[in-house]
């Protein structure tokens, strides 16, 4: 075997981009613990990257973390975020109601545009594919309650870790093209969406139907698409087959699955999912206090009034294995913002006291994940706290403080990861 100069090799490995230095995205490198994780966390904050849910299997999915089984809510394990696009079979799942489709007959399924349109229409999936120009956009789908288990004091709701998010290349029909096709009549104020999700509760309550609406004058209407492809393939059933709404930059509560009705409304949508649920305090970062809520001092707005705050995550190293002093360690992960491109990611190896710029990966547009990489060569053994901080093109920087609101929304505090460095002698 040809001798390779050790220094040169280490330099190459440190430079990144070497295939042999990359880990497969679909490998679970975290050790299988000999003792199971606790089955719940609290009243303190959840200390783990993911929520403490068991791995389970579902149709069209790799083993994912089961938060709840009826309605279905599945969290994506950390290691699937090594790649800029999240695999369909690892993409998280979040339903509100338990009656969701097991089968759909495409000869009978139609997308219905009804309400205040010039000509209400029904379109088959084939017509959507053939009659309208397909467009593609890379966009992050993130649950409003992603990382809710970090809240202090804890709040009720889905106790997600960081895995209620995913990035995909979505392909489908522009909402604008559909609206023009049916002709939005004057007097329309909102466009309402409804899918196939139903529940056992009364029809007029949130437990019976799930509906969301967007303001017709919201600029996001121009960017919204109805996607029938996700990363180039038909949507998994649990991610909204055959058609789902993609609302770039907005939280996923608006990204309806199995979209079947699009309604032009002449009055503001007052259904539970707009008027009562998914509301955030009307404060600068959506933060408030339990005391102000109890005193009824908090004015709220639908979470659609804001975009997703800037966030970044440490994917490697994950703390499950030690690093070796004197050898390079790659600190890698993803960052995104609902307000536009991530322009800077900084890494700290001293818990956030000093920061150094990381190298950014390819740019897939303003709404996509962006990967980052930073090569760190720890010289001394010990315990270190890594931290990562992103800045977007609008100048938004991640804060080092947590938010608090009763819904458990908008978490974007700087993430940290403790790692152990071993001496090599």
């Amino acid at each position, binding site marked *: 075997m040809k001798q390779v100069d050790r220094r040169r090799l280490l330099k190459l490995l440190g430079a990144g981009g070497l295939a042999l230095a990359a880990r497969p995205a679909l490998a679970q490198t975290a050790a299988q613990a*000999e003792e199971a994780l606790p089955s719940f966390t609290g009243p303190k904050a959840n200390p783990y990257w993911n929520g403490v849910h068991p791995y389970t299997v579902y149709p069209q999915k790799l083993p994912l973390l089961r*938060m709840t089984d009826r309605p279905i809510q599945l969290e994506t394990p950390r290691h699937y975020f090594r790649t800029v696009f999240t695999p369909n079979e690892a993409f998280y799942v979040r339903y509100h109601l338990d009656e969701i489709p097991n089968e759909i007959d495409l000869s009978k399924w139609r997308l219905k545009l009804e309400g205040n349109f010039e000509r209400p229409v029904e379109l088959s999936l084939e017509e959507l594919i053939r009659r309208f120009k397909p467009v593609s956009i890379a966009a992050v789908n993130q649950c409003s309650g992603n990382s809710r288990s970090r809240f202090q004091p804890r709040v*009720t709701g889905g106790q997600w870790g960081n895995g209620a998010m995913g990035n995909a290349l979505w392909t489908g029909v522009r909402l604008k093209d559909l609206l023009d096709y049916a002709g939005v009549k004057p007097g329309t104020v909102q466009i309402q969406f409804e899918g196939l999700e139903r529940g056992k509760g009364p029809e007029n309550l949130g*437990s019976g139907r799930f509906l969301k609406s967007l303001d017709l004058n919201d600029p996001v209407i121009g960017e919204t698409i109805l996607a029938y492809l996700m990363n180039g393939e038909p949507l998994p059933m649990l991610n909204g087959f055959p058609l789902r709404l993609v609302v770039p930059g907005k939280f996923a509560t608006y990204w309806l699955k199995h979209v079947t009705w699009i309604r032009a409304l002449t009055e503001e949508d007052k259904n539970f999912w707009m008027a009562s649920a998914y509301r955030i305090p009307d404060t600068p970062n959506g933060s408030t206090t339990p005391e102000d809520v109890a005193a009824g001092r908090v004015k709220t707005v639908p979470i659609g009034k804001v975009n997703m705050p800037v966030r970044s995550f440490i994917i490697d190293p994950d703390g499950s294995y030690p690093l070796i002093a004197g050898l390079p360690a790659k600190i890698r992960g993803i960052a995104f913002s609902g307000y536009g491109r991530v322009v800077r990611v900084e890494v700290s190896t001293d818990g956030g006291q000093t920061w150094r710029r990381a190298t950014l990966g390819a740019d897939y547009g303003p709404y996509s994940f962006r990967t980052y990489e930073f090569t760190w060569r720890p010289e001394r053994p010990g315990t270190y706290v890594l931290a990562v901080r992103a800045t977007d093109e609008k100048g938004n920087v991640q804060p080092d403080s947590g938010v608090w609101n009763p819904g458990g929304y908008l978490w974007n505090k700087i993430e940290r990861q403790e790692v152990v460095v071993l001496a090599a002698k």
Partner: protein
Amino acid sequence: MKKRWLIPVGLGLLGFVLAEVPGVVEGNYAQGPLGLILQPAPAKPGEGTVYRVGAYPLYTSELADGEGKELVMSYCAICHSVTYITMQPPLADWKPTVTKMLKTYGGEKFIPPDVAEKILAYLQAHYTPETRKE
């Protein structure tokens, strides 16, 4: 390097052994959760236009034993599995949550007031920071 052919492989089953090199521990095994994750089932073909994924599996968590458990399992599970209860952090006061289920989500349509009280008592007895064990 000296080859030590004579060390029987079976030693690993008796617990780990101390190896020749100080500080090296070898042959330590622990039982893994075999069979908990199954291979994917083959797809069942639809009728030409039917997209079908089959039944969704239930992985419902166990509730703590105690008075009212059966009521929780039958009434709460009308709309959602009881996994929703075990998934929450321990709550000091379950009353707002129970009220939300009854009023906001219309659970009172299915759940009589006396049953609702027993459900609340069960949750307080097993799922607060002081009372939660598992």
